[in-house]
């Protein structure tokens, strides 16, 4: 057993941290929150040059051939710094399913372009039913000549408004169970019949409503097997959950660091407020939350990366970190006092993201339900 990162991984972490601190300062984060596209093409290009988009893609597709755990380290730093834009959607929601289930042609078509930063990808799964399971998919795909015709509404789709391609999860057949009859489609975002609108959210994270009206998708764009797409989605969701957890822990650490620094400096009643016992205990509680969250994250990430069954660990990680990130940011605001409630203070950036992240890929109750099933209840 080894709970340490390798030297290369530590270097990846340091490089990422330094790069993001320089290239994506909070001023840019705020700009991008208000920006319609929500990302900086210049920064995107630099990230591609660092090999980040293709970090876990095989070298034959212009990737770096690194491991899932390496990607997790990167996401931790991304969460710590905050990086607006379609990195998560392109790399995790788009890249990983294509890597897992694409044909040779599809992989050759999409992965190098994703690695080079040339295309932006996303996954259109959730709908107004607001669930992450197969039963929530009502969008239909009906075979017609050499194509499929897609109809339906997707909601909360990450960065769909700037995506070049969306992997659409649709129902091609009514099966015995909701998981049967699900097919994945690589949909050109410029196809006629697609209407995309960004929905305003607390974290200004560019979630979209995507309306599909008679959208024609060629047969060759089916990703994976007809009617048997759900296992790909399930695997992607597991990876996405872990990656999101990594982002969240990074953010929680940043919020904690910011708070501890503040309470050391802020003087009231002639002493730093960090010398008051209650504030000290808040910080201790925050630290416990982050540290334990990180441990569970790494366990889940390692297992998921090794291809081992990890449903329980992933659910535990997301359930725990959901609450931990919220706790740390709420306490963080409280410790900062009034200044922490302003738009301009950085602690608010993390608070808002904690609230949004709680729900991504399953809120705490749904994670508990997964755990209940896993432990045989």
């Amino acid at each position, binding site marked *: 057993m080894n709970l340490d990162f390798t030297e290369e991984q530590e270097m990846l972490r340091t490089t990422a941290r330094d790069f993001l601190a320089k290239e994506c300062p909070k001023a840019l984060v705020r700009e991008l929150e208000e920006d319609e596209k929500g990302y900086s093409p210049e920064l995107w290009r630099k990230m591609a040059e660092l090999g980040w988009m293709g970090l876990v893609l095989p070298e034959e597709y212009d990737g770096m051939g690194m491991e899932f755990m390496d990607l997790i380290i990167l996401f931790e730093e991304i969460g710590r710094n905050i990086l607006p834009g379609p990195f998560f959607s392109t790399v995790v929601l788009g890249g990983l399913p294509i890597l897992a289930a694409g044909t040779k042609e599809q992989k050759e078509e999409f992965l190098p372009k994703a690695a080079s930063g040339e295309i932006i990808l996303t996954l259109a799964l*959730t709908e*107004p*039913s*607001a*669930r992450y399971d197969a*039963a929530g998919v009502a969008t239909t795909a009906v075979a017609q000549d050499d194509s499929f015709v897609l109809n339906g509404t997707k*909601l*909360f789709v990450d960065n769909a408004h700037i995506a070049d391609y969306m992997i659409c999860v649709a129902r091609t057949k009514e099966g015995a169970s909701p998981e049967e009859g699900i097919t994945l489609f690589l949909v050109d975002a410029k196809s006629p019949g697609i209407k995309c609108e960004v*929905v*305003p*959210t*607390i*974290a200004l994270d560019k*979630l979209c*409503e995507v309306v599909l009206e008679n959208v024609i998708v060629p047969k060759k764009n089916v990703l994976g097997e007809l009617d048997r797409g759900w296992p790909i989605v399930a695997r992607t969701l597991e990876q996405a959950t872990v990656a999101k957890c990594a982002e969240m822990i990074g953010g929680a650490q940043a919020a904690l660091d910011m708070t501890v620094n503040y309470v050391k400096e802020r*003087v*009231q*009643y*002639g002493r730093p407020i960090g010398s*008051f016992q*209650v*504030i000290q205990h808040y910080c201790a509680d925050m630290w416990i939350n982050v540290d334990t969250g990180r441990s569970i994250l790494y366990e889940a990430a390692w297992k998921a990366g090794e291809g081992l069954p990890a449903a329980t660990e992933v659910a535990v990680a997301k359930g725990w970190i959901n609450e931990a990130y*919220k706790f740390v940011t*709420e306490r963080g*605001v*409280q410790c900062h*006092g*009034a200044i*922490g*409630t*302003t*738009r*301009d203070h950085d602690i*608010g950036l993390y*608070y*808002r993201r904690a*609230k*949004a992240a*709680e*729900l991504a890929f399953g*809120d*705490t*109750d749904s994670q508990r339900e997964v755990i209940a099933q896993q432990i045989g209840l």
Partner: protein
Amino acid sequence: MEMNLFRMDFSFSPEEKNFRVQVRTFLDGEVSDEFLSNLEEQDEVDFSREFTKELARKGWLAMAWPKEYGGGGATMMEQLIFNEEMGYHHAPTGGHRQGISLIGPCLIVHGTEEQKRKYLPPITAGEVVWCQGFSEPNAGSDLASLQCQAVEDGDDYVITGQKVWTTNAHRADWCHLLARTDPEAPKHRGISYFLVDMKSPGITARPLLNMLASRDFGETFFDEVRVPKENMLGEKNRGWYVSQTTLNFERSGIAWPASAKRDLELLIEYAKETKRNGQSLAQDPIVRHKLTEMAVEIEVARMISYRVAWMQSKGQIPVYEASMSELFGSELLKRLGDVGMQILGLYGPLEHGSRWAPLRGRVVRDCQFSLGLTIARGTSEIQKNIIAWRGLELPRV
């Protein structure tokens, strides 16, 4: 057996019940969904000026004040009822709270006849907006360490300094302000209280954005602002003690539990109407648990607030009970915001402006807005200090 005058009674008198009906009818009509929608989109103070004046016309605005100062001379219970209904209806108070609840009472107790004549009538008529110049960048919880200076010069005091978290700063007509008149004295004893015309030369007020990007408070810079000596309230260097005046109006803090009650009702309605997983949210045991837990907490908060008003109605001065009510109520709203977001699920983070945002984005707004409630008017930590020191007499080191 002797008849006892006082017996436990959780009900209101017929007159009080009648009064509640009057207030409720008025607010049901005035504070409609459309009103609230407009309120959310526009600046609260500007939008609610007419509403404030209407309250004044009904004699409710300054209902807590003694009649001789233009008030309604209302009883504690009437005030409690009024504040409860206002809170429940989410009616705006931002424009008038400073004048009615803070500076007004100080003027009544400590003002000269001339000051009362000049400043009180516009407050009771809802025609003036006051802001509070208390907090400074280095004086938050430790307000008494404030540094803003007021130097005597002829017939004036010259004020220099910076105030922050000044509610309504950029649109206030007047500012009630604490400044240091004796830098040598121990900190509480060198402060004086001033009434400052916001149109005075040398004042710059800049709004600050809160997390919701709305301009509720601001920073105010005083650059050698001349304030006539007659604008000092109370005695020189006694300003701190003047500002502690609360007058005998109710301090129940009922607005928070009342507001929470309405929010909960909206969530319950939403839960009953929204289907997920083939059943309404209201049928989901986890959702039921969350909603009922909040319902219980709201009722407890209500009782803790009622207790304060009741004590005051008997002429008792709450020692720690008002702190407890403020603490419980503000923490309650934070918890409710969090629980609401959980119930709304993926729809929780959606803000007002999208057709998909539930309840006009009320919950996502509350979960940000409520962060300030455990900080403003005394942080939760300070409230607990007060409860421990004054309520339980635990030792201060």
